């Protein structure tokens, strides 16, 4: 499959990039704040982690491990990468799914209305809200949300309340889980819905001008029927693409939002391991994200084929 070269390319790219980043995980671990440290301890650490072996050896070991699904141990904590990532993956997945649901439920109707009533005040309002969603920095929005919650609850309920800062899976304690994840969902979902709304609108607009729609209109079919049967289905093609791309982005790209809400997710792990020069963890995370991207693309292609018979291919 054509996926293999992509994966190999990604593996090589991340390996090279990480080795170029200055800094050493052992130094960061041992250095403390300028106080006393033991140079031989650092050297011993490097021996143990294998960071002073020739690069080619390290690369071969990395790729060989990938092929056997052995992702190694984190250089920072010493625990197996899979264990470290599993929990974060669960959390990121939940936020991604929730944000997708929120985003899509809001976006498709809004985008449709906006396209059908192009250049009316509804269109302007929807476009204004959407662009605001894309323009507002996500972390600023998150900061304002938390601050707002604290101040609001203190003012009206007497005691300040903020979302929980530790994670419990949704099947263990749904109320707790949702009270924590609803806020990042809102902060992210706003931007997500904005992007999808715009795409829905422009895709629908394009389709509505197509010849076959004009023909159907000339024939006298109702607008609603035309939209629902013909236009929407074809407009969904680019919309599905963008939903897929945004979902893949949410799995690991939510770096800043996770920092703001203290979500123990893949994005936060990414930043931490890059800043700690934890090669094994970062490499594995990147491969994970690339795999997700490839899988989402594959899924989107299937949706394409289902939505538009013209595109079906073996």
């Amino acid at each position, binding site marked *: 499959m054509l996926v293999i070269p992509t994966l190999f390319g990604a593996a090589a790219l991340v390996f090279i990039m990480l080795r170029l980043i200055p800094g*050493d995980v052992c130094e960061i671990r*041992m*250095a403390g704040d300028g106080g006393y440290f033991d140079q*031989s*301890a650092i050297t011993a650490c490097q021996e143990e982690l294998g960071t002073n072996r020739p690069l080619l050896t390290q690369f071969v070991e990395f790729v060989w491990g990938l092929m056997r699904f052995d992702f190694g141990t984190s250089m920072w904590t010493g625990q197996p990468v899979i264990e470290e990532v599993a929990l974060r993956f669960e959390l990121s997945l939940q936020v991604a799914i929730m944000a997708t649901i929120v985003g899509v439920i809001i976006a498709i109707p809004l985008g449709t209305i906006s396209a059908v009533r192009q250049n009316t005040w509804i269109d302007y309002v929807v476009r204004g809200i959407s662009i605001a969603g894309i323009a507002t920095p996500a972390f600023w929005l998150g900061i304002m949300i938390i601050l707002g919650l604290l101040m609001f609850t203190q003012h009206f309920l007497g005691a*300040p309340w903020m979302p929980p800062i530790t994670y419990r899976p949704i099947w263990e304690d749904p109320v707790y889980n949702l009270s924590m994840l609803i806020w990042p969902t809102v902060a992210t979902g706003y931007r997500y819905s904005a992007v999808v709304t715009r795409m829905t609108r422009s895709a629908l607009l394009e389709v509505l001008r197509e010849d076959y729609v004009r023909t159907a209109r000339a024939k006298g079919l109702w607008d609603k029927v035309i939209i629902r049967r013909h236009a929407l289905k074809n407009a969904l093609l680019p919309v599905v693409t963008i939903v897929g791309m945004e979902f893949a982005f949410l799995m690991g790209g939510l770096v800043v939002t996770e920092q703001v809400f203290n979500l123990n997710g893949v994005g936060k792990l990414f930043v931490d391991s890059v800043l700690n020069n934890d090669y094994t963890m970062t490499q594995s995370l990147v491969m994970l994200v690339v795999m997700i991207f490839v899988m989402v693309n594959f899924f989107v292609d299937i949706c394409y084929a289902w939505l538009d018979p013209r595109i079906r291919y073996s």
Partner: protein
Amino acid sequence: MQSNRMKAVCAVVAGVALGLGAGSATGAETPKRGGVLNYVVPAEPPGFDGHRESTFAMVHPIRPYYSVLIRVNPDNPSSTTDFVCDVCVGKVPEPTDDGKTYTFKIRGDVKFHSGETMTAHDVVASYHKIIWPPEGVRSHRKAMFGMIESVTAPDDYTVVFKLKFASNAFVPVLAMPFNWIYQKAVLDKDIHWYEKNISGSGPFIFKERQAGGFMRGDRNPNYYHKGQPYLDGIKAIIANKQSLRVQAIRGDRAAIEFRGFPPASRDDLVKALGKEITVQESVWNCGISYVPNHKRKPFDDVRVRRALSLAVDRWGGSNYLSKISIVKTVGGITYPHSPLAPSKEQLQQLAGWWPDLKKSRAEARRLLKESGADLSKSYYFLVRGVDQPYKIVGTWLVDQWKSVGLKFEQHTHPTGPFYAIQRGTKEFDVSIDANCNSVVNPLVDTAKYLSADRASNNYGQYIDRDADAIYDKMLRATDVNEQRKLMFEYNKITLDTHANQSFVLWWHRIIPHRSYVKGWKIGPSHYVNQVLDNVWLDK
């Protein structure tokens, strides 16, 4: 005499620090049992072995699960001389044999969480791992125990430390919060076991870890300090962003954070919560400084280095920097409340600590002119990319040096690349620096200012045998007064006469916490007093 005045000042400060505490200084409250203490920690511990690691991010969540031989008195952590026994019996013993032998008696009732009773052999095995680790085992503070000749257990409940020479640096080194007692049986089977597992003899038993999320433990019902711990359990929650840690305390998702908050956060919390917040403050055993690179022109010229120091207004800076940053106290390279610290009058003799700022800066300009330094060039100032206090003090320092005509360009790097440059390539003219240590031990803490071939954390790349000689004499001196005199000499040569490195300000530890947390008292180090066995919740 200076020492009496110093001691009085220390007593006052200690009293103030205690008084700002939760009222338990007045002593009348009886601790209540029960409750779980939630506290926030800035980072994930990289490993669980206290002998190996050095970061406080490991100490805060994991220290409560282990015991040590002696420790700083948890009811008086701001003292630099008050050490008490943890698993030993009675008081910290006086040395015999001309100060070279220390004999400790071990309690008979210390049980490991796995059930076995602790004996002297466990203590000896742990210290052997710390001081003489076998091949492939890392011990971070190995060199600090250089004065120890042997550690033996003549019987099941006695441990004897024999030193090569008498040293009053020994007891503070022994009291370091990293010297955890492990089980000999476990070490014999797998010496690396404690790197990934937690099982000790401390007041709490480790129960659960959520990777990147939290670590929690429950009360140890067989704890040997009877009646303690008061808490049912502890939970250390990992929260990277400082602002989130502040918000967590405000929203009561956590009750306390053990590192320290900047002044603005303290003010916000006090304004928002009033009586529900208690603030404890203390001088921190951390200092921020800068180090000139002696291998770069013109900083190889002592006149230029002195000019750098003379340009900095430490007394005034303390005033306004303490409003926006976690620095405050003006001092030399010695912890200000230690018996060896120079007095204010002595400090004011050093270049850069003169009370007259105008005179300082005039002298700085004169020295720069005399040395012929190139003032049109913009020099490379390496700064670590952490806000508190590095970036803030760094920005301020650039401003200070500008006032005498020296132009610097700030190059801020995140921690990893920062160390790569500071330690690796050394491509900087001046670098920001810090000196953070655990138990206050001025003799060990000031080893940083020795020649570069003796101190691995000296980034100035210089050799100064005169400074080394003073230090060695000070280390061997047995009389505290003699040591204090030599310490001032050491200060003078490092900061003034040779201006090898410099010192700016001592950090200031501010811990605002929920008022229902009682029993915990602030000390000068965020590594120390984290056992949490005397903490209780007034709820």
